[in-house]
């Protein structure tokens, strides 16, 4: 069984991020790392391939400046190879363009049985790319997976809901987005880290994907960021003094919010 995992490489969330005042987009000039959200998809893919007893995990990523660090991390975990799309022309791409580029890149990997993504990235978090990829590849899409089991040509997915989870069956190939935290991503072994250095990394440009520079980046974007403003500061909360009836007031407050 062959699984493709879309992995985004993002600025380290531990460092203070910065916005480019001109373009109002996140500055991505420094070293990028594997988005933690995607480490769950990588782990799940490795487990699925293991369970199937054969096949491999291929990574697909679109990132600026030929960035490979995040891919190397996922390769060290055990993925077999990677496709990296990096091209100046991609600067300014919106979520739909990203999905088009990723869909084309997935096409280069052959015929995967399954495409995994996270439900949303940690930096852009539009949470739209997975469904767009599915539509572009004409594949069924299942979101918010907490577990996936594959049997022949069908995947059984437990799909997280507010109340619990739905059991969903989907014919393969399909695109499934994986909820963060549902598996424990493995640490790369020392051997895995050494092996990652020599695993195949297919680096391609927009033209290699048969796309036109005009279709992507700023020129291809169907959306424009017109303004960015500070999030509102949190307002001071309500303090309930407990005079013996404090619990009543808390219950009333929650009822007012329609939480209970």
């Amino acid at each position: 069984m062959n699984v493709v995992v879309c992995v985004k490489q993002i600025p380290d969330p531990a460092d203070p991020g910065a916005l480019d005042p001109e373009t109002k987009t996140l500055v991505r000039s420094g070293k990028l790392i594997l988005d933690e959200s995607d480490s769950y998809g990588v782990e799940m893919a490795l487990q699925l391939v293991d369970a199937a007893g054969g096949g491999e995990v291929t990574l697909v990523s679109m990132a600026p400046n030929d960035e490979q660090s995040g891919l190397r991390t996922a390769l060290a975990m055990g993925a077999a190879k990677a496709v990296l799309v990096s091209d100046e022309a991609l600067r300014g791409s919106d979520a739909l363009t990203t999905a088009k580029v990723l869909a084309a890149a997935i096409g280069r990997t052959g015929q995967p049985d399954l495409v995994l993504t996270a439900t949303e990235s940690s930096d852009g978090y539009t949470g739209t790319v997975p469904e767009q990829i599915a539509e572009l590849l004409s594949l069924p899409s299942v979101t918010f997976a907490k577990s996936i089991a594959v049997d022949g040509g069908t995947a059984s997915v437990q799909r997280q809901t507010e109340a619990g989870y739905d059991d969903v069956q989907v014919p393969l190939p399909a695109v499934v987005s994986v909820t963060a935290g549902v598996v424990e991503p493995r640490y790369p072994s020392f051997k895995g880290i050494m092996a990652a250095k020599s695993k195949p990394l297919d680096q391609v440009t927009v033209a290699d994907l048969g796309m036109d520079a005009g279709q992507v980046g700023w020129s291809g974007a169907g959306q424009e960021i017109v303004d960015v403003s500070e999030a509102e500061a949190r307002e001071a909360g309500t303090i309930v003094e407990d005079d013996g009836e404090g619990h009543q007031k808390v219950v009333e407050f929650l009822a007012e919010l329609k939480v209970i």
Partner: protein
Amino acid sequence: MFQWSDEQEMVRQAVRDFVDREIRPHRDELEFGDLPPYDLLRKLFATFGMDAMQRESFKRRIERERAVEAGESVEAQDAEAGRGGSADAIAFTMIPIIELCRVCPGMVTAMGVSMGLTASAIMSKGTIAQKERWALDLLTMEKVGSWAITEPNSGSDAFGAMTSTARIDGDEFVLNGSKTFITNGPHADTIVFICKLDEGNPPEERRIVQFVLDAGMDGLEQSKPLRKMGIHSSPTGQLFLTDVRVGADRLLGESLDAYSGKSGKDASKATFSMERAGVAAMALGIVDRCLELSLDYARDRVQFGQPIGQFQLIQLKLATMEVARINLQNLVFRHIEMTAAGVPMSYAEASAAKLYAARAATEVALEAVQLFGGNGYMAEYEVEQLARDAKVLQIYAGTDEIQISAVARSLLAQG
């Protein structure tokens, strides 16, 4: 080598994540309670495939030794093995030491004595059968090892005042003596016991011999952990031997011929050199963590209306810590480079490095306590523990005074 490679940096990050997630949460039980470190160390080994790597290199080494015994040519293998091992392989042993010492230097002591000292003693002096019987399980941390030379009345003068003896009795040896300050002593499965062979000759003429013992042997008693100043995550104890009878299969090398002349002492000395290189990596971990904590504190703690980092006396502490960190890192890099190049570090240089590293770690950790003021003296702020832990580096593996005389004697002997 002047910095970690990309892969080494990845290893460092992965180990740091593991230590923060899996070991740091147990700091209280390890350093202020009685949790032995072995299961956590095994988890570290399994997580990063360190046990599998040990098994593979052990297998290669044994195959090579078999070939040598059979008189086959091993030149091609030697060339491939590339002198002392790859820089990566050596870095991958240094990095966990550094990262663990940022939290629990005691865990490194326990690990180093078991898979380092004890296993190395068997690997350097044992027969193939003995290596297979005892060393592999120690190298993978499956079993816990102790290396016992120190006695109540023989420490720095390890060989001179040693009273533990092996007496020949037919095909067997009868071992007697007591050992103290033995790392892992209370939990050891496998013990390398160093003593003098009593052939009826005067003690100062006796040969130094080494035996391998298993826990539970008749006449062998392992004490409870001793209470001590620091490195609580490394259990330290006493061993008492009363007429422990062993066959030649437990004599390292399985023949007394292996202990002629000074070779017994030389084998122990080789172990000292290796131990001393590990101390530089330990000191680096301690200093690195102390500096990191001190920097945060110097930025955040406000007195007299400004962060204390603005005071020159505090800046002096920070700068001194950074100088030590850079020097220690360079010592570690030098050790990696030299080992990879197959150039052994001289006894005097290893002693000089150990002396510097131990002092730097203790000084930096005590200065960190000072920088933290009253909080520095409180267990919660970590530097208190690191300062107590660092002190032992000046005592074990040869005291500072012993390193100083080794360095000076070597200088005076030249030219």
